[in-house]
């Protein structure tokens, strides 16, 4: 008998698989080489019913609305309103192309806690090229400016690849200048479409360390929080020396694990993983979380990491990337695998 109800902090809801951009670095599971069920979206009522069920079971108090491009769904406003009515906070992860003044007016009054928009470069051509969409830079910067005019909380996302890494300092400054409240600085994490372009996109630890040094200086100079949410393995990066940056690691197995629901209710261990644990419309959320597949995902760790002092925290980087690229949870994170020769495991 449990004395306290079990609770899971937050969920990711991929409201649609559709997208109007074509980012080479996209991690979406349905773009993997491995087949993933194509999902026609449920109707609004069914979607809300599904959300209600999983929120009742999980007790989550935050839902991150993602995709694809969530603003492509006409009923995104109803979904946001439903969550607000339930007292559940909603983050919106959007490429900004459809964040018009009208959309902001409909969503701004306290329906969205944090807006996450990509700002891939201060160089218009680089941002547009990475997005696979001409005009993307102008649309996202306009969206940023309009969101800040409406006093919304905005975080920009910089995906560090070889294509844009040289423009990082100016991009961070631009994010600050446009009023961003925080910056997510993520190294390229192979998966989905990105798994086909690893060589062109994956930067080296040396290049990324330079980026971190620059980020530290920028965060200190401007007082803007910068967070690295994709795992930066401590054997490749001396993360402890950065006083102004926060680092995230795989949250699998914790109450903050990024359980992700796709448009038709399939639950996955995280948004980077292609493994489907089951469907929340048919099964109880906790039965899926306690399943063998979920356990295997949480427990997986590459042999390379055995004996490292930080093994149980770092968990070997991103196992979802290992799964997406190599088809094997026990394989090494492709980034770690590529640079394992440089790895120095933290000693006691």
């Amino acid at each position, binding site marked *: 008998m449990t004395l306290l109800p079990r609770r899971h*902090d*937050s969920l*990711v809801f991929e409201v649609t698989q559709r997208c109007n951009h074509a980012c080479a670095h996209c991690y979406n599971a349905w773009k993997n080489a491995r087949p993933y069920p194509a999902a026609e979206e449920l109707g609004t009522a069914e979607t809300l019913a599904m959300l209600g069920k999983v929120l009742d079971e999980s007790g989550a108090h*935050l839902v991150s609305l993602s995709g694809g491009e969530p603003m492509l769904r006409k009923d995104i406003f109803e979904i946001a309103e439903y969550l607000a009515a339930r007292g559940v906070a909603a*983050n919106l*992860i959007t490429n900004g192309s459809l964040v018009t003044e009208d959309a902001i007016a409909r969503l701004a009054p306290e329906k969205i806690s*944090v807006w*996450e928009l990509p700002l891939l470069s*201060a160089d*218009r051509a680089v941002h547009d090229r990475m997005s696979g969409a001409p005009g993307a830079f*102008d649309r996202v*910067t*306009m969206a*940023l*400016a*309009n969101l*800040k*005019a409406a*006093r*919304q*909380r905005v*975080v920009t996302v910089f995906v560090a690849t070889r294509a844009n890494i040289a423009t990082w300092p100016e991009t961070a*400054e*631009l994010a*600050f*200048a*446009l*009023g961003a*409240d*925080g*910056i*997510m600085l993520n190294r390229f994490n192979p998966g989905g479409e990105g798994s086909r372009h690893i060589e062109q996109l994956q930067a080296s630890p040396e290049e990324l360390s330079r980026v971190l040094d620059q980020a530290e200086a920028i*965060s200190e*100079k*401007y*007082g*803007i*929080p910068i*967070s690295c*949410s994709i795992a930066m393995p*401590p054997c490749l990066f001396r*993360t*402890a020396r950065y006083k*102004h940056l*926060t*680092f*995230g*690691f*795989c*949250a699998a197995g*914790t109450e*903050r694990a*990024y359980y992700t629901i796709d448009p038709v209710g399939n639950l996955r261990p995280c*948004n980077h993983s292609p493994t489907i644990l089951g469907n929340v419309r048919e099964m109880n959320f906790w039965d899926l979380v306690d399943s063998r597949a979920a356990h295997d995902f949480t427990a997986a760790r590459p042999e390379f990491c055995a004996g490292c*002092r*930080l093994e*149980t*925290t*770092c968990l070997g980087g991103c196992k979802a990337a290992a799964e997406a690229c190599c088809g094997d949870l026990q394989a090494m994170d492709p980034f770690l695998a590529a640079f394992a020769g440089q790895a120095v495991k933290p000693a*006691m």
Partner: protein
Amino acid sequence: MPQRAVNLVLALAGVAAVALLYVIGADLARAAQRGPRWKRCLLSAGLALLAAVGISATGCSAGGNAPAAAPEAGTAAAAADAAKDAPRVSPAATTEYARTRIRELEKRLAHLEKMEAGADEVNPLWIDALATSTQVDVRFMNKNEFLSQVSDADLPHARAAIDRAAAVLKRLEAMWARPYQAPESPRPASPESLAGKRLEETDAWKNLTALWAFGGEIAAGRRGPFPFNTRQQEQLLADLQIVRKNVAAMENAGLFSAAEAGLLGLNLDAMITRIQQFRPEELRMATCYQPVRMVSPNESVERLAARLPLLEKLAASKTLHREVVEKVLVSIETDILTLSKEESLKEFAKAEERQKAEKTRDAAKAAAKRIRERIVPQRTCYYLVPVEPAKPAKEQSRARQEALEKFAAADTLRPDVLRQAAANARSPENKT
């Protein structure tokens, strides 16, 4: 003949002269007041001379006995030294005496560099003796009188050690000369001042952090053998006692666990004891000859053994406070490292002492490892980016406007975007 002995001889001579005058019946008081002026002046000068000699002969002055510092290169004193130095004669082989002096210098150098880094335990009396004896070595070993005992083949090695020692001494001198700027004195923490606050928000914790760092510097010898004057030492010790009491208050307020409080307390007690061992500046010339005590690995065992029960309790506790744990683990991990070195373990004469040291070390290492794994690093949620700005809104607004001007000049943004962004940056109400 040593200076001290000379002073004593002069003092004794003075005493003998006074005794002689007394014996032959000279009335010094009357002689000082009567008679020809020249006689009275001579008598006064003689008494003054005896007084000066007597004062310099009293006390046990390390300052008085300490050799003069090596003159700085390029100075007149250095030039004078060099002028007196005979030319170097190149010997067939380095003498045993020279080898020993170089070896001893290198050993002292290792300790000096550790002292400079603030690593490990440092005995305050040792700091002074170590620095002083190294100064003597550097001065003497730079002379051809010594270098004539070093073969051509060994000369570069000898010079390198001497130069390295001179450089370390110069850096230590600069480090020790820093002005004394103690943190603000703490107040005893009341329950009201702690209630409803997070640990890092309380003044009590901020005071502890500041005094821990400052006191730690002094205890590690990074402010030299005479780091304060009497008043400053008294104030620092009083402040640390308040901090010590505030640890108990913070524990009672539930801001950290009993184990954390216990470990913090032990470390603070050790710091207070060490600071008490330092002599203030006023007693610099009154320092008596003291036997130098080397730090023994047995002290590491004793410290670890005292902390082990609390450490194991901490490892098993449900909540850990990173800020507290980071502080208390430093000295524990240093002791573990000391006891992991063969050169330290060899100092245990008996097998059972060595076994006890290793057992204590291993138990502490296991507990510290469990604690470390829990605190470093933290997992954060992908979608929970911290968005609390670290600077005041007005300052950020100004900085944003300046940054926008740069992008405007570079024509980065579309005009309508720039216009809106500039308006946002100017608006004093634009805050989330």
